[in-house]
Structures are given as structure tokens and as C-alpha cells.
């Protein structure tokens, strides 16, 4: 018996709207299709109407989890257009936040993977420890999610001695915890049984379908923009690219936990070698007509911004390529011949960030042609009305 299950746009496994149509036979998936377009905000069009400064905060809001990634990718591109170089201390702080964000994103992913596999204790523990890094980020930048630490020509907040000490302490805690999660992820039998062999993506397929980030690295492709195209400080930092050969969800988990441990190393290196000096240089208001391709390794894979300036204080074109979008063709491939039970895991394994992937269309009043915003009191009035006029015991004939 063949039938199609709609996973999404609203589904408990998906934290953001996307539609996966699965054609299944019994419990086995025969075909998969991904439909996007539920989360468009028209960012690329909007960016053409905003100034360079305003666009920092706009790009930051492409995504909630990797907010710093998009802002940094944008800012390092615009700095090249404006021909300014941030001071070294500023750069170090900027990429320190980058790595802390990677830590927070990967810990979040571990929890989500646990939850999708029905392993709620793992979820609770990883998210508890994620609070440590969230607090560090809040301390550095002043906010927990949208750090807004980037500005054109450097960063906006400096680090003092006390904060550096606190970060070191936090990293020590996180390191022991991550090593513990590595042990769990690799040896808890029910968890491993769920992850191993699920969502197979061979190296050739991963290459052909342009997978990026941990998804590609778990298939044995050693692709990491931080190594291949070292932006800013990454050519000074010693670190390894983490790969796995198992090509499945377990491999993706292992890659992410190893990357966590690598990130702690990078953070400690950055803090130990933090140079003295300014944190920002003054940026001009306009940029000369030019174009730049900015690449950045976000927690989910390669971020790419193509920025073109036309001499004004606004960009001519800002093209954003988020890593999740690049991983969709690979996801469809992975889902085929899996089980229904594996759908959330496989889909979660690319660490999907749907608001990253979809950002291009203006919100036009879609179906009804008009938009209505209700006040709370009006909403309550409507609910009361609905309750008073409710159909009298339609078909819910209660036998009592």
C-alpha cells in the first residue's frame, strides 16, 4: 500500500515550517519531495533598500541560531568593499564569538538529535550545558541570541580580564561535558541503534549534490572554508578539520562533537593570544562600486554572500546562500529507502535552519489579499463569541 504522508508545514519534528512529502510503502520511504516557501521575508530585496549599517542587523536576522555567521559573512565582505581592515583585537573577538556560536549551535543540534530520537534525557542535559555558552555570549555581547557584536570595521564590545577568566572557566566545564556526550553518543546502545546506518549518503553523492558542512564532512569530504579559504584569523590558528567515514547520522553526530572539542581549542588559542589595541576602526558611509564574494564556515556549513556595491550607501545586490539550502538535494537522497521513524532524524541531521534557507520573497498578502492584525482584547472577544455560538453538541454525543 503506497501513500503519501505530509511532514509539515506544521509537525512536531519540525521547529520551522517546511513541507516534506513522503511517499511510503508500509514503513519504508519510497520517494521524498521538499517544498519550500513558507518562511519568506524578502530579505534580499529589503537589503537593497537599507544602508550598510542597517544591513548588519538585517543579515543577523536571517537566522536565529547562526545569527553571527551571517552578520560576520556580510561584514567581512563589506569591509573588503570599503577597503578597511579591522584591528587584530577586534578580529580576534569577532571570531571568538564565531566559535562560541558554533559551540552553542552544535550543542543545540545534539539536543535536537536526542529529542528526535526520543532520547529526552540527552536533550535536557545538552541544553542545560548549552546555557553555559549562552551565558558567556550574553556576557560578551549583551544578548543571548542576536549578539550584534559586529560593526563595520571591527566589533562593538571589548573583553576585560574578568570576562576572559569567566570564558576560560566556562570552556573547561563545556569540555568535560562534551567528552561525556561523546561517550554517550558513541556507546548508548539504543541511541547508536537509532543513528548507525541511517541516512546513508555516499562520498560520491555528497560531492555531486553539493552537500556542505558536517553533512559533507561525515561523508569523508574534508571541506571546511576555515581551512580551504582561511578568512581573517583562521590562517593563524592551528586546528583540524573533523571528518568521519561512516556516511550516516552517527557520523554526523561524531563530527559535530569533535568539532565542539576543536572549537574549545580555537577559543582558548584566541583568548591566550588576544592582542592589545583597538577593537574597531571607523568605517566610511559609502563603498566604491565593486563586488565581493564572502565565504564563511557557519556551524551548518558554508555561508556565501555575494555583495555588489554601486557607490551609494546601500548595496546594489546582496545574495545570501545559506548552508541548509545547499543540503536539501542531499537530504532527499538520504531519505529515500529509509524508515518513517528515521525521517525526523535524517532531516534533523543536516541541522536544518529553514529561515536561513528561505529569505527571498517580499511578504505579499497571499491568499486572502488582506492582512489583519488583532489586538489581544479583540482576540478575546472573538473567542468569547465563538464559544457562545458554538454548535450545540455536534457529533460529540457523549453517552453519559
Amino acid at each position, binding site marked *: 500500500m503506497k501513500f503519501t504522508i505530509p511532514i509539515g508545514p506544521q509537525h512536531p519534528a519540525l521547529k520551522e515550517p517546511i513541507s516534506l512529502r513522503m511517499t511510503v510503502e508500509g514503513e519504508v520511504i519510497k520517494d521524498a519531495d521538499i517544498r519550500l516557501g513558507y518562511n519568506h521575508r524578502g530579505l534580499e530585496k529589503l537589503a537593497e533598500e537599507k544602508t550598510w549599517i542597517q544591513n548588519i542587523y538585517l543579515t543577523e536576522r536571517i537566522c536565529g541560531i547562526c545569527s553571527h555567521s551571517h552578520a560576520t559573512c556580510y561584514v567581512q565582505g563589506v569591509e573588503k568593499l570599503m577597503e578597511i581592515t579591522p584591528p587584530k583585537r577586534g578580529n580576534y573577538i569577532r571570531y571568538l564569538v564565531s566559535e562560541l556560536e558554533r559551540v552553542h549551535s552544535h550543542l543545540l543540534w545534539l539536543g535536537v538529535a536526542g529529542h528526535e530520537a526520543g532520547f529526552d534525557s540527552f536533550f535536557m542535559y545538552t541544553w542545560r550545558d548549552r546555557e553555559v555558552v549562552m551565558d558567556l555570549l550574553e556576557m560578551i555581547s549583551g544578548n543571548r541570541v542576536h549578539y550584534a557584536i559586529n560593526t563595520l570595521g571591527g566589533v562593538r564590545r571589548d573583553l576585560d580580564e574578568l570576562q576572559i577568566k569567566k570564558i576560560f572557566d566556562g570552556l573547561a566545564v563545556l569540555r568535560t561535558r562534551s567528552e561525556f556526550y561523546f561517550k554517550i553518543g558513541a556507546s*548508548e546502545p539504543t541511541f547508536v541503534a537509532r543513528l548507525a546506518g541511517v541516512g546513508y549518503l555516499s562520498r560520491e553523492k555528497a560531492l555531486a549534490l553539493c552537500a556542505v558542512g558536517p553533512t559533507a564532512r561525515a561523508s569523508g569530504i574534508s571541506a571546511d572554508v576555515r581551512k580551504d579559504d582561511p578568512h581573517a584569523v583562521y590562517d593563524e590558528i592551528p586546528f583540524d578539520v573533523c571528518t568521519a567515514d561512516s556516511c550516516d547520522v552517527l557520523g554526523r553526530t561524531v563530527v559535530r562533537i569533535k568539532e565542539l572539542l576543536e572549537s574549545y581549542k580555537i577559543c582558548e588559542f584566541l583568548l591566550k593570544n588576544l592582542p592589545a589595541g583597538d577593537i574597531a576602526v571607523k568605517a566610511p558611509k559609502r563603498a566604491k562600486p565593486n563586488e565581493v564574494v564572502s565565504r564563511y564556515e557557519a556551524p551548518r556549513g558554508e555561508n556565501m554572500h555575494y555583495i555588489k556595491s554601486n557607490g551609494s550607501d546601500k548595496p546594489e545586490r546582496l545574495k545570501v546562500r545559506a548552508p541548509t539550502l545547499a543540503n536539501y538535494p542531499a537530504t532527499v537522497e538520504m531519505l529515500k529507502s529509509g524508515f518513517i521513524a528515521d525521517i525526523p532524524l535524517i532531516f534533523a541531521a543536516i541541522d536544518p535552519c529553514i529561515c536561513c534557507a528561505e529569505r527571498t520573497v517580499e511578504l505579499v498578502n497571499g491568499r486572502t489579499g488582506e492582512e489583519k492584525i488583532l489586538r489581544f482584547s479583540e482576540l478575546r472577544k472573538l473567542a468569547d463569541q465563538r464559544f457562545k455560538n458554538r454548535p450545540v453538541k455536534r457529533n460529540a454525543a457523549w453517552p453519559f
Partner: protein
Amino acid sequence: MKVAVFLPELLRHLFKKPNTVDYPFKKLEVPKDFRGTPFLHPDICIACRACERDCPAEAIEITSVNEAEKKFSMVIHNDRCVHCAQCVDSCPTNPVKAMEMDHLYEIAAFDRHDLKMDWTFTRAVPKREAKPAAPPSPPSKTEPAQS
């Protein structure tokens, strides 16, 4: 193959204090650089409109009320504010910024009108030799109405 690797960790935590904070009853301290809600020191503001120009959310509105008396009115739409503190960075007054962020974070309201804050003020004269004035205390206006 090991069985129940997680078990010792779980049992260890059974007799520990929970890590969660009983939120609405107990509150955590925010760090000193926390970006809460922006507010204005109307006695310092020189009405240069730098904040209005740079605000990414178009949440700040400065209008001239009376050109002759140099009276201005400023509205901060907190329902649009994204709490990025760019207005504080853009503010050119020295050494005390006319825009500042407070530490409030429980700023939800039932009505978007309650989130609007406005000031009417006379433009301050920008001083070249800025004498270190005592930082003015935040006006009570910054408390958003919780009706």
C-alpha cells in the same frame, strides 16, 4: 557493548538540586552590558537624528515640534525595536550618550500602544568642551506600562 551508559549520570543528579530556575518567581541577574530597552536623556539630546537614520528597524522617530523654540519630539516604538543598541553607538554626544539601554527584559504588553515611549524636549547645545556631568538617572518613562 555497554548497556545504560547514561544511568550513573542520571542517578547522580537524582539527589542534586535542579538546574532550572523557578523563573517567574526567581529571576536571574543580567550582565552589566545587557541590551535591554533604549531610552533617551532628553536634556542631552542634540536632535542630530543619527539614531533615526541608523536604526535598522525604523523604531525611532524624531519630529520637530516647534522650529523657533528648537523643540523636538522623539518616539521610540518598542514594538519594532530589535534591541541592537545601534542608536547608542551612533549617538555622538560626549561623554554621556543621550541614548542608553536599560536592563529591562520583561517588556511584553497586550497592546502595541503601550510599548510606545515619547519625549518632547528642547534641543541641547552640543558642547565642545564637555564637562563631565553626572549621568542623569533614567527617567521613569522607561518603565513600559504593564496595563
